[in-house]
């Protein structure tokens, strides 16, 4: 009941005309950048971080949340009509969705993706509404040692467990943590890794890293081989309406997708790819005609799209209750909180109820707006999709320059941007995930802070990490998360070898 009352208050905040306007702006912008290949929510929110200096917190977070949800909807349009997925989480959608589009069923594919996103996004937001206060109660028992261990667990799951290449993911994470360490250490006042450059004393700005990895890296990547630039938009044919048969096949897949996506997103592990792959696998197993998979089965779009959106809502649970970002976008949103001097964590709901519940209420509204924006108005987004590459990528680089040069008007920042862009290019070349860099960069300094607090309380005794039951459990889980995939693969291989 208390939750519902709080949510009601949240709706009063979110329904204020200016906040509605910010929400509308957010979902529109989010769909736009989701549709455009090469731009994503993390990059967009990073570019808009300066807004935190001029706009009050609630409005800014409503905007950011709209971008976050909107990009999920927009990304599916791109996957279906253009085989290059806009978001990593919509790779699976491309498998069946693009096939459907090629065989003239683009309309139903877009419809099941949009309605499924709405259904699952709403279920996920309901889950967030009721789970968040519960997690907060648990989180209040967390001491600094427990937080530190929780972060270690998140580091491992985000970079090693959920990716297909654990070593590369961890290397990306370590690189990110290192970037986060650059600058003056706030506790001791010592400069670290500044290489004598005044520009680095304040640390490396997260905008530069995000824009470098995602925008510059992607542009260099596409530039270096002609075949990467070949893409053609499949025109939408066929009615947008779902037939009775389509509905019958879609709705169970939506619900199953939502039930898979939300819990996985809400775990302090994050990652929207795993739930989409799981959902795809499940739908294929359950399908009455599994032979249709690979040729354009509507369940293969409905399930993963739902899982994707539900997990996006799930990611907000650890984000808002523990201050623990588990995706690149969530990490950027955390840095926006820091910019306002707000520390997300168990106390956030109590100290900033207007903000948190206004944000959550705006997600319900945003989902509704997005359904309207993506079904009847899908034609607009199809046209956005046909912005020619020779204009799109130069434009993205201009925005990248704005985000970077605007920080300090120093060419050094631009050189840093290019250097990180080159790293992003190499990471694409060697199939290294980029999200762990951003997560490590934001979460690394927080982990250091928690470790310091923990050891100050224990008077320098590091065994506190192992003697506190909660902390020890979390560390054990981290070790398990690190080793389980390796052991699992060995087991499977042995079984295969043994027949």
């Amino acid at each position: 009941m208390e939750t519902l009352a709080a949510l009601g208050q949240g709706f009063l905040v979110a329904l204020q005309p200016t906040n509605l306007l910010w929400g509308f702006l957010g979902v529109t912008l989010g769909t736009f950048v989701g549709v455009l290949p090469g731009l994503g929510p993390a990059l967009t929110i990073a570019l808009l971080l300066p807004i935190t200096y001029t706009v009050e917190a609630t409005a800014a977070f409503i905007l950011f949340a709209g971008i976050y949800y909107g990009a999920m909807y927009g990304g599916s349009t791109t996957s279906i009509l253009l085989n290059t997925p806009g978001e990593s989480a919509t790779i699976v959608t491309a498998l069946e969705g693009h096939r459907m589009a090629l065989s003239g069923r683009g309309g139903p594919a877009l419809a099941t993706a949009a309605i499924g996103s709405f259904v699952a996004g709403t279920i996920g937001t309901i889950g967030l509404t009721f789970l968040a206060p519960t997690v907060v109660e648990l989180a209040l028992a967390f001491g600094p040692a427990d937080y530190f261990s929780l972060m270690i667990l998140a580091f491992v799951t985000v970079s090693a467990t959920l990716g297909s290449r654990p070593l590369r993911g961890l290397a990306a994470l370590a690189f990110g943590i290192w970037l986060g360490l650059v600058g003056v250490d706030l506790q001791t006042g010592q400069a670290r890794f500044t290489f004598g450059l005044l520009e680095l004393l304040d640390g490396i700005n997260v905008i530069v890293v995000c824009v470098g990895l995602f925008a510059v890296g992607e542009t260099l990547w596409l530039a270096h081989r002609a075949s990467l630039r070949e893409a053609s938009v499949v025109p939408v044919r066929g009615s947008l309406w779902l037939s009775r048969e389509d509905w019958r096949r879609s709705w169970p897949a939506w619900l199953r997708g939502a039930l898979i996506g939300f819990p996985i997103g809400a775990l302090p592990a994050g990652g929207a790819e795993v739930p989409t792959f799981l959902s795809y696998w499940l739908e294929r197993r359950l399908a009455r005609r599994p032979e249709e998979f690979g040729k354009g089965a509507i369940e293969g779009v409905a399930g993963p799209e739902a899982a994707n959106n539900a997990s996006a809502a799930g990611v907000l649970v650890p984000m808002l209750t523990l201050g623990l970002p588990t995706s690149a976008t969530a990490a950027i949103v955390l840095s926006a909180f820091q910019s306002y001097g707000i520390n997300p964590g168990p106390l956030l709901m109590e100290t900033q109820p207007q903000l948190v519940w206004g944000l959550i209420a705006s997600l319900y509204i945003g989902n509704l707006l997005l359904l309207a924006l993506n079904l009847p108005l899908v034609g607009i987004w199809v046209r956005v999709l046909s912005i020619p590459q020779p204009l799109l990528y130069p434009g993205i680089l201009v925005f990248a320059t704005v985000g970077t040069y605007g920080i300090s008007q120093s060419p050094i920042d631009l050189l840093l941007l290019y250097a990180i862009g080159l790293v992003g290019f190499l990471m694409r070349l060697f199939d290294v995930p980029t999200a762990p860099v951003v997560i490590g960069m934001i979460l690394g300094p927080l982990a250091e802070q928690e470790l310091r607090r923990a050891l100050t309380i224990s008077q320098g005794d590091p065994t506190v990490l192992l003697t506190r039951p909660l902390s020890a459990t979390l560390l054990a889980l981290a070790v398990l998360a690190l080793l389980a995939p390796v052991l699992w693969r060995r087991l499977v291989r042995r079984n295969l070898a043994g027949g």
Partner: protein
Amino acid sequence: MPGRRAGIAFALGILALAAVVAIEAARIPQSAYAVVGPRVFPFAVAALLGLLGLLLLIQALAGHLRPADFAGEPVDRQAAGWVGLGLFANVALVQSLGFVLASSLLFLCVARGFGSRRPLRDLAIGLLLATLVFLGFSRLLGVRFGGGLVEDLLGGGS
């Protein structure tokens, strides 16, 4: 085996980074007052990078760490060259010409790299976009850009 050498170079690069981090970490002054000194995390990161670099090197030697395979397709030197030129022009000229003009040149070069053959149109679009972006970010978001030819005409960039 194609790409094996590149994989080895990549792993060696991570080891080199680990070495740089370790050397720089050793140069951070100790602090007597902190329970967890300013060097602890840097050394941990160096150790982690070193370990991962070694493991990746083993993978690379076994041929399991390779760059993306393009089946013999050559690098598109022209496209990469134009993008590189645009980025270089941008950083070299942004202080003297100002953000708007330098960005327009960046736009022109990158558009050319991505296959456009209409430089005048690209320059016009680049100028328009850079001006709009400049106005949007400086007026609405309060981002500062310093001066420049176009910026001063539009009422200053700072």
